[in-house]
């Protein structure tokens, strides 16, 4: 641990593309994840930001937290705006315009802007094969408008539009599997990450951006405000999500799944759920249901990994 503290800062470059000085809540995991993601990149990046917490806390006129060229237009069209920028660079470069080398387009959005309202534009952009990276900062609800459910909110979580009550257990549906949806577009790179594993996150973002063609990175970003959890536990929550199997870390490269942080034994989901007020109302039965589902989904990914390595072997 001592060595870690000495060497880690040396491994990470000093410049911040996402500068200090923004308006996020105390302990915001999304702000942390964004900082990590953009620290992994050089400054040859154009950022397209969907409406949501990240845009609001980083761009209030006349200030900005961005050291990179940055554009926000709307909530649901981020992938389409990125498509336009990528196409523009391609055409202008072909026609001989003097443009900086190797410029990359990175689109970012929350889980709402990604898995709900922006899904069509994202699917279109992935399908058309634009050379860009899309990063979803998944805090598992519409946080910017005050913690309403999204299709990425986990089963049983209480939000303001899926409140727990006499006739409601909170969120009634299982979390939409965005990484699988992205991977189903047969794009070259898909990965999951979270700020509690910063090097893994940074390596994946760097890899995504270096990929030719569309890449998708899904980053679990703890929101203490919406999750009703203490502000000093965000990295602990983030790691527990991985250790319990709730949010497995993996990569899908050209269709081949690879586990990034393998958990030989998963911790029980209660370890994760109990630290968060949004799950406070859950009964043991519901928790058992969640446990079952988490194990099932985790096994599916392991199966995919197994198939992937077999396929890779036969090809080799």
């Amino acid at each position: 641990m001592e060595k870690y503290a000495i060497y880690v800062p040396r491994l990470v470059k000093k410049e911040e593309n996402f500068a200090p000085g923004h308006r996020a809540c105390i302990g915001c995991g999304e702000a942390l994840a964004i900082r990590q993601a953009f620290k992994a990149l050089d400054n040859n990046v154009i950022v397209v930001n969907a409406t949501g917490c990240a845009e609001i806390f980083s761009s209030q006129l006349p200030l900005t937290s961005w050291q990179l060229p940055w554009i926000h237009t709307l909530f649901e069209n981020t992938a389409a705006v990125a498509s336009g920028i990528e196409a523009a660079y391609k055409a202008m470069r072909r026609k001989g315009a003097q443009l900086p080398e190797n410029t990359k387009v990175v689109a970012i959005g929350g889980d709402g802007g990604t898995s709900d309202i922006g899904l069509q534009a994202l699917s279109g952009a992935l399908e058309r094969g634009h050379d860009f990276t899309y990063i979803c900062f998944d805090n598992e609800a519409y946080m910017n408008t005050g913690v309403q459910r999204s299709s990425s909110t986990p089963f049983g979580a209480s939000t303001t539009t899926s409140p727990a009550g006499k006739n409601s257990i909170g969120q009634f549906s299982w979390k939409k599997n965005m990484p699988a949806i992205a991977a189903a577009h047969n794009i070259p790179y898909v990965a999951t990450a979270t700020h509690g594993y910063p090097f893994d996150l940074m390596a994946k973002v760097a890899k995504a951006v270096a990929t030719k063609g569309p890449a998708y990175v899904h980053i679990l970003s703890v929101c203490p405000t919406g999750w009703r959890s203490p502000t000093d536990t965000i990295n602990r929550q983030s790691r527990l999500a991985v250790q319990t199997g709730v949010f497995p870390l993996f990569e899908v490269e050209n269709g081949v799944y690879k586990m990034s942080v393998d958990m030989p034994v998963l911790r029980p989901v209660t370890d994760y759920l109990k630290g968060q007020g949004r799950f406070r109302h859950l009964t043991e039965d519901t928790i058992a249901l969640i446990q079952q589902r988490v194990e099932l989904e985790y096994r599916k990914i392991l199966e995919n990994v197994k198939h992937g390595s077999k396929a890779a072997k036969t090809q080799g």
Partner: protein
Amino acid sequence: MTIKTGIEVSIALADAVKMCNPDVVAAYPITPQTHIVEHLAELVANGELDAEYVPVESEHSAMSACLGSAAAGARTFTATASQGLALMNEVVYVAAPMRLPIIMAVANRALSAPLSIWADHSDMMSVRDTGWIQIVVENGQQALDNTIIAFRVGEDQRVLLPVMVHLDGFNLTHVIEPIIFPTQEEVDKYLPKNRFPLPLNPDRPVAMGDFGPPAIFMETKWAQQVNLVNSKKVILQAWDEFDKAFGRKYMPVEKYHSDGAKVLLMTMGSSGETASVAIDEMRAAGLDVGQIRLRLWRPFPFEELREAVKDADVLIVIDRAMSFGGPAGPVASEVKSALYNQAKKPKVVSYIISLGGRDTTIDGYKDIVKKGMEIAAKGSRNEFEIYGVRE
């Protein structure tokens, strides 16, 4: 050397876009806009146009991709109509305050329901307040000319605004007309290269489309108003220079036998040509009628309108859209408010005609003028008249 060809107006418009050498065309098909974007796709596919054609999955994304493209500094074109424009609406609003010079042809078509693919101006009216420059054309030649002009105006450093060129669906898009084509050299001379001043570029980072708190928002909106109103000077100059280069003159309010006429018919769009024939016949029969055609819808040409109608007693304004439960047709409403505070002004009669592609004939326009004069003399209990409807 200029060439005069019989050609479908949509194809001519697409060819005009080609001559302007856009970098990006992002579009989604909708009748009656399809021939424009199909032809552009074909030109790109054949290597006749060096541009990225982005076949997006919706109009919302078409306009969004255009935002990105224009922000990156690329010359950008799209086209749509009706429901497509309605789906785009949210994004259309973003382009003007962000000062992104996107050029869009709108093949005007009615809005559902009931479903209609034919022309009227309901779609145009739904984007009236989006802050775009809006030019309305009457025939194929004007469509071609004003497409070229739109790039020059929108990209002008004093303007930097998106521009819509409105042409009536089918009545214009699908007809074959004799159209004079300029040469590529002439277009290149008229249209300078696009030099967007603050493009998204890692060498010189800018932040665009930030979050505007109340302390700043009103100032940005006022700036938008000043900017759009000021664009008129540049539009007039671009039209003037177009006249010098190509010998065809455009004006915000175009007059047809209107000087001194006591009764004026005001049109906007393709109906103007049929109306002109009616005016010819009425004048031949000794009636003191003239016509004015509104070419520039935004920024609205207040001075030119007031000047054009100052001697008239009656002004019959033709609209091809409804403002349900409202005062008059949208154009007539604006004309009325433009004239209300004038000391001397004609009586304004509002006529809604030709919704969803219904034809109004030459005799129809004559009828409208006759009835309009009666209404001006005797008054009417209606806020506006609707022509040719079976009740």
